[in-house]
């Protein structure tokens, strides 16, 4: 282990010769995901689109700062923030106690409840007893893993790298149910062809320990000025109608504290 550390340090120092100098201090770099529609996804020409992307841009405009969006895969999101690859994360990241030990969050910019999804013909209920021995698919490292493990201790929790894979394996029958954001489930699965035979199972899940206070913007610990600026900017765009405008582009209802349609 010690040798490996030395080796990597040597390699890193060698690489620093080709490393880029710091981008201008004024430019705020924001980490985004690009594979979580409708919050963030990619157009055919590589342009990033989605609710998170538009919110990030609106906040930058509100704070009057130059911004650069940096794409980062979900698994490396927090390490990259801590390694200063970017200064803030706008990627539908829920504010949780566990994450707060590593990073700080702005105020929430939206909050939707989590719900289970299973086949329409499911002969079990969305309760800890009903799901005992069943396979539940959730996205790894996300809030849903925490909640599923806590709430359904007798079920088999199957972990995936991305939400899309969870839906795919549900459709393939490899898991009996899945737990995710209700809005995501509605928009990218239940209303799509693959999800035609599936439905929500049971009601809302809003455990504060796992799901926290909603979705916020993550910053490194100690960056209090930036965190407060972001919270103020969120309040400002809620106030001046920019938020509503972006919200209406993607959703038929207000997701700031809202629930999915058709309930």
């Amino acid at each position: 282990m010690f040798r490996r550390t030395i080796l990597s340090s040597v390699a890193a120092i060698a690489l620093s010769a080709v490393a880029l100098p710091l981008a201008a201090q004024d430019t705020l770099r924001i980490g985004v995901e690009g594979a979580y529609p409708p919050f963030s996804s990619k157009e055919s020409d590589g342009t990033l689109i989605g609710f998170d992307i538009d919110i990030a841009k609106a906040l930058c405009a509100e704070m009057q700062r130059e911004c650069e969006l940096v794409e980062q895969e979900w698994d490396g999101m927090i390490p990259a923030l801590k390694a200063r690859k970017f200064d803030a994360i706008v990627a539908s990241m829920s504010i949780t106690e566990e994450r707060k030990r590593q990073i700080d969050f702005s105020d929430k910019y939206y909050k939707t409840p989590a719900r289970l999804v299973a086949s329409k013909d499911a002969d079990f209920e969305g309760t800890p007893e009903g799901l005992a021995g069943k396979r539940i698919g959730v996205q790894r490292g996300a809030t849903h893993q925490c909640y599923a493990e806590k709430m359904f201790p007798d079920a088999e929790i199957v972990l995936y790298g991305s939400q899309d894979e969870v839906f795919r394996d549900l459709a393939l029958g490899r898991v009996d149910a899945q737990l995710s954001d209700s809005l995501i489930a509605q928009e990218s699965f239940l209303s799509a062809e693959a999800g035609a035979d599936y439905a929500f199972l049971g009601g809302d899940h809003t455990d504060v320990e796992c799901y926290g206070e909603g979705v916020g913007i993550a910053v490194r610990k100690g960056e209090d000025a930036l965190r407060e600026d972001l919270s103020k900017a969120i309040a400002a765009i809620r106030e001046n109608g920019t938020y509503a405008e972006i919200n209406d582009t993607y959703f038929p209802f207000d997701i700031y504290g809202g629930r999915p349609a058709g309930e």
Partner: protein
Amino acid sequence: MNLLLEYQSQLIDGTIMTLRLALTSLVIALIFGLLGAWAKLSANRLAQRLAGAYTTIVRGVPDLVLILLVFFGGQVTLNNIGAVTGLWSYVEVSQFAAGAGTIGVIFGAYFTETFRGAIMAIPRGQIEAGISCGMRKPLIFRHIIWPQMIRFALPGFTNNWLVQLKTTALVSVIGLQDLVYNAFTAGRSTGQLFTFMAAAFVIYLLLTGISDLLLRAVERRYNRGVVRA
């Protein structure tokens, strides 16, 4: 199919990134491989030990672990060094440098063994014959060792290169937009992951197929005048 045409610029950009990564890391791997083979075969004990440690460590650790260690750990280490010494305030390990550098160093270890084996396959008598004819070391290397080393190393080289080309897919974890990353994002954005994975499959097969053809031509060239047993 229409979806693939629509997203073709993403796939092409990804393919170019994959090739750039593979070729850059190949150059690094060849340099490390030649140096490593030279060190392992040299009479210098220190060089032998260093090269031994290099191949043992690098070949013993998963590629992904090393890539993550350099990309995230490396940057934190560098910035900590900067903060302690006050020499620099912030440096960034670029994704491309971290990816190409790490893969190059990893495969340098495999090439070390390939080249070492190839040099050892050259009959010792030929080198002794060179010495007895009064040839100096550089001349022996150019005329006796190099051409035969290439010939003996080529099958192993082809093997390493094909694995290396595919290993570049690991860099999508650190956000480098290679073929796999772009195919994944396009697949997830459109909800047609299978279509894009199939496209990536075909593109990788094309790249490896073309490499195989080219390398076989090179092998024929270096095998001229050699009678196969």
